[in-house]
């Protein structure tokens, strides 16, 4: 390990970098410490708050699950195969990161809205997206799937294709070589991509608000309380959300790291 204050350049970099860290940490800390524990507890007992937080975690989990099922195979192809238009596909995967999320919501509404062919087709199966949980799920999916696909692709790229070839000569079909060699070796990256995607989905506001203001996910609830009742009422919900997200995120990171070390 290199010393942090090795020379003057390091010292000035430390000062500059610290500004950013403080910029993140201070507002979060301020929010968390400003709330009186009794008020927090009361907020936690609020049926609406708990329902909304549960919905947020659940919808983001479903989105992550969907992205896992389709995104891991896609990531594998991007890591292993060469095909015309590959750069285009990679570009498309990154698009959700760059478009404004409210615009993404509008775009989804154009395809999954009530009067669109796709929207009507899904409604035959009792699935509606506008002002419904599936709408929240696809909004979260759209804006966060890049994280999972990119992380998984990097994970697969780090697996030497010759490991799969050895597995093949030892009697493994392509499927088995994938499940027994490539997937377990890329799992750590996939898992960290899933955590990132899930966390990104939790915090989504812009795309979700267009498709489904109700049922209310936590970010929208915070916004609504702020708009209708003011800062004092929005803050405890914000605090709860920050704390829960931080705790889950840290816990998942720790689990992922331990698993990575064990492998």
């Amino acid at each position, binding site marked *: 390990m290199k010393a942090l204050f090795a020379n003057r350049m390091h010292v000035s970099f430390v000062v500059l970098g610290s500004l950013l860290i403080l910029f993140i940490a201070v507002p979060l800390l301020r929010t968390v410490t400003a709330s009186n524990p009794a008020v927090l507890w009361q907020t936690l007992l609020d049926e609406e708050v708990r329902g909304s937080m549960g919905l947020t975690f659940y919808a983001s989990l479903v989105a992550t699950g969907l992205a896992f099922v389709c995104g891991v195979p896609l990531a594998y192809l991007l890591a292993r195969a060469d095909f015309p238009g590959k750069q285009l596909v990679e570009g498309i995967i990154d698009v959700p990161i760059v478009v404004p999320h409210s615009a993404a919501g509008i775009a989804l509404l154009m395809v999954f809205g009530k009067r669109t062919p796709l929207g009507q087709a899904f409604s035959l199966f009792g699935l509606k997206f506008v002002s419904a949980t599936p709408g929240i799920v696809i909004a979260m999916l759209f804006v966060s799937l890049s994280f999972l696909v990119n992380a998984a692709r990097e994970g697969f790229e780090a697996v030497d294709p010759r490991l799969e070839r*050895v597995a093949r000569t030892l009697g493994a079909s392509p499927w088995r070589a994938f499940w027994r060699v490539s997937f377990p070796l890329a799992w750590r990256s996939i898992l960290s991509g899933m955590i990132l995607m899930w966390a990104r989905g939790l915090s989504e506001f812009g795309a979700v608000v267009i498709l489904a203001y109700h049922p209310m996910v936590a970010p929208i609830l915070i916004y609504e309380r702020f708009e209708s009742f003011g800062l004092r009422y929005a803050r405890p919900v914000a605090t709860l959300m920050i704390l829960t997200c931080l705790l889950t995120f840290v816990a998942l990171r720790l689990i992922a790291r331990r698993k990575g070390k064990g492998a």
Partner: protein
Amino acid sequence: MKGYGSVQVCDLWVDLEEFHLRQVNLDVAAGEYFVVLGPTGAGKTVLLEAIAGLHQPRQGRILIDGEDVTNVPPERRGVGFVYQDYMLFPHLSVAENISFGLKLRGLGRGIIEERVTAISQLLSIDHLLHRRPGTLSGGEQQRVALARALVVEPRLLLLDEPLSALDPGMREGLQRELARVHRELDTTTVHVTHDFEEAVALGDRIAVVNEGRVVQVGSPEEIFRKPDSEFVARFVGVRNIFRGEVRSGEDGYKVLPLNGVEVAVVTGLTGRVHASIRPEDIVISREPLQSSARNSFRGRIVDIADRGSVVYVTVRVPSAPQGKPPDFISMITRRSLEEMELKEGLEVYIAFKASAVHAF
């Protein structure tokens, strides 16, 4: 454990990024140890991977035991593959690596354990079974890779530069191990290398490849005595290579008799070995030499090959009447040749240190 499989490669063309195989024909007999020798980038790995079924050829056929396997996927070809850098599964223990292929075959636990134990004893890695590949030395990893390939009793063992990543000491050990394992199991082996000594030490026959083509096939002796192209001659180089049976001598030296000419060597090996002496290590003179070199012989110049600034002088040393007298090739500068006025038929003295003889 017996694996007999002949291999025929017929008119094989493969295109793979910058590597190309062009009209490759090979015929490897069952039980043979066949070495494919060539410089880096000659397409040796692609050839092995094509035999394993990992690349689809553009044209040509591959037969194993007479069965056309050109369109058979790798998992049904019955080949074992060992890469230069081991390619052990890092997420599995040594035992799990070795049993990987057996588990895929759905064998029972007892049988798997039995066969893993047998093969790891054969390769002296039975004390490593619970370790992770990352904690092993290069030599140990390569033994594990070899065990993993052999435990499924392949018809054919494919070795891609299996010794190149190892440091010299390890390399010699594992090279002998490969020879021993081949003697015991008789598995047909195709071994790819760029190292000529490795090829000579292990190969029953050698195929020299260059730029995706097979340029010469023959016994090691044929390849270095009668290179049939400029490329082979250059690639193999001018060498003194001998075969003989090492026995212990005096003063800590060992003796390698070459048709009655006894050469002192320094080596840990015993029994039948190959020995090479670099031409630049053999000193030539017209008078008997007074030096510390253990090996000093009188002979007659039978050939002088001019290579520009250097000259290769072949000296035949008289030996016991029944044997073929050994030829020693010495490299000297053109200037020394002129100063000593060396000519064919002239009697000269040659000398080299016992440590200049490399036994392998």
